[in-house]
């Protein structure tokens, strides 16, 4: 475990554009808008990351493949020693694009598939044919020899479909299946009553997933959710306790504004206009997230020292206060 703040984050989650060809039920960015930077400015951001030895860029969005500059930007970042990945809905990822992605130097590509049932996935993503395109994208990535992962946002449509998701991931020989916990931001907040699990359902889901993972071979089943730390006997240590946002990672909006993560709409500064180190070390928002104070049920909870109140984004979305308990907490 680290005993103090790192000199810089390890990962920058970079939203190049809020534009997307899908309209997903859980999307945090559907109603977001920001000017987009040109390639010269995007390269300048890569220079900032390289100067501060921030090694990992993960492009998300919005759909990253909507930006024509993506591949050239990736090549530049790789030439500066950075490792670049992205998460895509797979729609624009055909055989030719897979080859171009490989040439650009992407270290891995994640494709979002939320259900092994094509109809369920298509309805969730509000895009007929999206399951087939996403599945085909995984096949194209495999054929092009690109490391690939699969991402699923866990919610009411799929929390009992874990075996099916794993089987699908195995079909395309992905290295990891990321089970993203549902965030009540943007469309996710609007559709929360329909999509979010109860705290008890979250506990059951994670207990089930942990049990499955113990016997899983050849596939990395990943779920990065700080509330898991309060499960009895859960001994796995993350890189940091509590939310990793603002401790190991930051999020970049299309105009260069930095936020702790995509789900927390609080701007700490602009990467092209302000000194990055100063923002990282001195931002009152980040320091508040790094030094949370237990409130409510957390104040007397024995698990707090392990989970640090759970996901700060969910707490903030529900109450406007990072210190509030994570609404997914079952304790």
């Amino acid at each position: 475990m680290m005993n103090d703040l790192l000199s810089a984050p390890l990962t920058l989650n970079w939203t190049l554009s809020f534009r997307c060809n899908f309209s997903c039920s859980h999307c945090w960015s559907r109603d977001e808008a920001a000017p987009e930077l040109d390639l010269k400015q995007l390269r300048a951001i890569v220079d900032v990351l390289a100067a501060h030895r921030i090694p990992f860029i993960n492009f998300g969005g919005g759909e990253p493949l909507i930006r024509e500059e993506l591949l050239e930007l990736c090549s530049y970042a790789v030439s500066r020693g950075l490792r670049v990945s992205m998460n895509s809905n797979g729609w624009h990822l055909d055989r030719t694009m897979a080859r171009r992605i490989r040439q650009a130097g992407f270290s891995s590509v994640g494709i979002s598939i939320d259900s092994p049932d094509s109809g369920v996935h298509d309805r969730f993503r509000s895009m007929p044919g999206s399951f087939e395109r996403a599945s085909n994208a995984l096949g194209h990535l495999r054929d092009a020899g690109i490391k690939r992962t699969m991402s699923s946002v866990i919610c009411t449509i799929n929390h009992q479909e874990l075996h099916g998701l794993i089987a699908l991931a195995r079909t395309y020989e992905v290295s990891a299946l990321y089970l993203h916990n549902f965030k009540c931001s943007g469309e996710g907040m609007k559709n929360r009553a329909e999509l979010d699990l109860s705290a008890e359902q979250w506990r059951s889901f994670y207990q089930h997933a942990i049990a499955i993972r113990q016997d899983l071979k050849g596939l990395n089943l990943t779920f990065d959710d700080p509330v898991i730390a309060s499960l009895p006997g859960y001994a796995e240590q993350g890189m940091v306790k509590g939310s990793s946002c603002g401790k190991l990672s930051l999020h970049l909006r299309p105009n260069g504004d930095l936020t702790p993560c995509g789900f927390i709409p609080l701007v700490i500064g602009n990467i092209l206009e302000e000194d990055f180190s100063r923002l990282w070390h001195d931002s009152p928002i980040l320091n508040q997230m790094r030094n949370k104070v237990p409130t409510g049920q957390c104040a007397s909870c024995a698990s707090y020292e392990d989970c640090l109140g759970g996901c700060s984004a969910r707490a903030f979305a529900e109450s406007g206060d990072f210190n509030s308990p994570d609404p997914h907490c079952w304790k």
Partner: protein
Amino acid sequence: MGPKRHTDIFWRVEKQRETQALEGVERGDDCSEIGTVTLISGGQMHQLNLIGGMIWNLCDGQHSIEEISSELALEFEADSEELIDDVRGFVSDLQARGWIDDE
């Protein structure tokens, strides 16, 4: 030729912590718990303390175990002969983790 870091392992010096550790050593404090070098291997983050980080930094394929020990001895005003076994043990541990090429 000496021990050489794997090129696919990302690592960086945590400058502020390194300064903090060096100042602590000057004062005679125990700074062994301060992580001054961060490594990412296999999706996991690892940290090395000041001495471990210095050894890691010198594992560039150009420094032998004896030369690394001499560099450390100079930095910490110690006898390099007394450091060799510790340095060798540390490098062996790095090799066992797959972070250093076998010599």
